[in-house]
């Protein structure tokens, strides 16, 4: 009997989680990169807490964006190289749904750990304790939107040899709104203001990504497989 959609999603998630934990270096690399960038910054700035606090949203979000670009390369590349992505496309199941499951797992493995580890880096940047949860929430939501947007560009660059640079170039313009609203949310959290307005906008981008990105990614992957 044909496998149901939920079971397909579960199997893909289980597979990708298992693969990621068997190759932890690939998992840790973007996270380490983020931690290094975010912890080195305070050393290069005046050790004045108010100044560090001003720079914190920018440092954290640029670190998060660059780190997620690094991680995006692994989203479909390995599966495309060993032919398993091709088998997904020929499985008779919805490729859109399968890529959505892959993208969610990718966020679980890269975006979420990054958001959860951000407070460690944020302490060094003078982010007050009460702003931490809001900052984590904005990074988690923004990271999810980044993964979805990135799925399209990762799909588009599948066919390109050494597509890493192209992937970054294509993703950056699409990621700018996420960066702007995300940094704004973190800034507001640090200042003690309401973070709802930029969070709503981040949420809107994520919802737009949820509805469109998997479809676009599937179309892109089919072209990439040719």
């Amino acid at each position: 009997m044909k496998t149901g959609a939920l079971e397909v999603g579960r199997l893909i998630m289980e597979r990708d989680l298992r693969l990621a934990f068997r190759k932890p270096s690939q998992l840790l690399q973007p996270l380490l990169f983020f931690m290094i960038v975010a912890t080195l910054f305070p050393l290069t700035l005046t050790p004045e807490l108010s100044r560090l606090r001003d720079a914190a949203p920018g440092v954290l979000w640029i670190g998060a964006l660059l780190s997620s670009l690094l991680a995006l390369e692994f989203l479909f590349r390995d599966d495309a190289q060993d032919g398993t992505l091709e088998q997904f496309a020929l499985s008779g199941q919805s490729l859109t749904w399968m890529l959505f499951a892959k993208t969610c797992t990718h966020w679980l493995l890269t975006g979420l750990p990054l958001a959860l580890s951000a407070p460690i880096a944020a302490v060094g940047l003078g982010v007050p304790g009460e702003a931490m949860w809001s900052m984590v929430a904005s990074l988690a939501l923004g990271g999810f939107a980044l993964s979805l947007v990135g799925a399209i560009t990762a799909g588009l660059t599948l066919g390109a040899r050494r597509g890493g640079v192209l992937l970054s170039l294509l993703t950056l313009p699409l990621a700018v709104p996420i960066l702007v609203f995300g940094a704004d949310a973190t800034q507001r959290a640090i200042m003690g203001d309401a973070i709802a307005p930029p969070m709503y906008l981040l949420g809107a981008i994520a919802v737009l990504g949820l509805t469109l990105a998997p479809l676009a990614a599937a179309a892109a992957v089919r072209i990439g497989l040719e």
Partner: protein
Amino acid sequence: MLSVSGLHLWRGDRHVLRGVSFSATPGQCVLLTGKNGAGKTTLLRAIAGLLDPEEGEVSWRGVPARKTRDAFHAELAYLGHEPPLKGDLSGRENLKFSIGIRRDISRAAIDAALERTGASSFADRSMRMLSAGQKRRVALAGVLLTGAVLWLLDEPTTNLDTDGQHLVAALIDEHTHGGGIVIAAVHHLMGLVSASPVNLDLGAA
């Protein structure tokens, strides 16, 4: 049941498929022959829907395959040059996930398929540790497990020993006797397949 008509396909500025037409009915095996670069792989990929032909049509059960893509793919098993397996997973895990996303599959069915292709003794080892021939045996177990009617096999005997080549021929025979269709690009299989195969020569490059 499968009908390919007037398939034209260019790769870059090379006209690879020049109006290929043939049809296959249940129980039939079509062997694609031709020199390297003649377009055997291209034809198989075009049938599978991985390549879009510039002209011509692939029909399955009388309907253009691209119009009912998912239903067509559910009845198709494609095995390319490289076995589609994850190096960090074992053979059993690979089959659990790759077949599991297509249809419900029991552990016993996986064991039986691995046994049939002579892969059960190394099915729990990481793919990275296996030889190319062993990987191919696991991949062949995957083809068996899909339960698909139409098999598209690209050089299925590559890296296999003589035993393995006979195994592929036997699997093809069993499949066609059971009403399946096999389209295979081959170099070494001629003479091994008992059911008189249809030979489609794609000619020179």
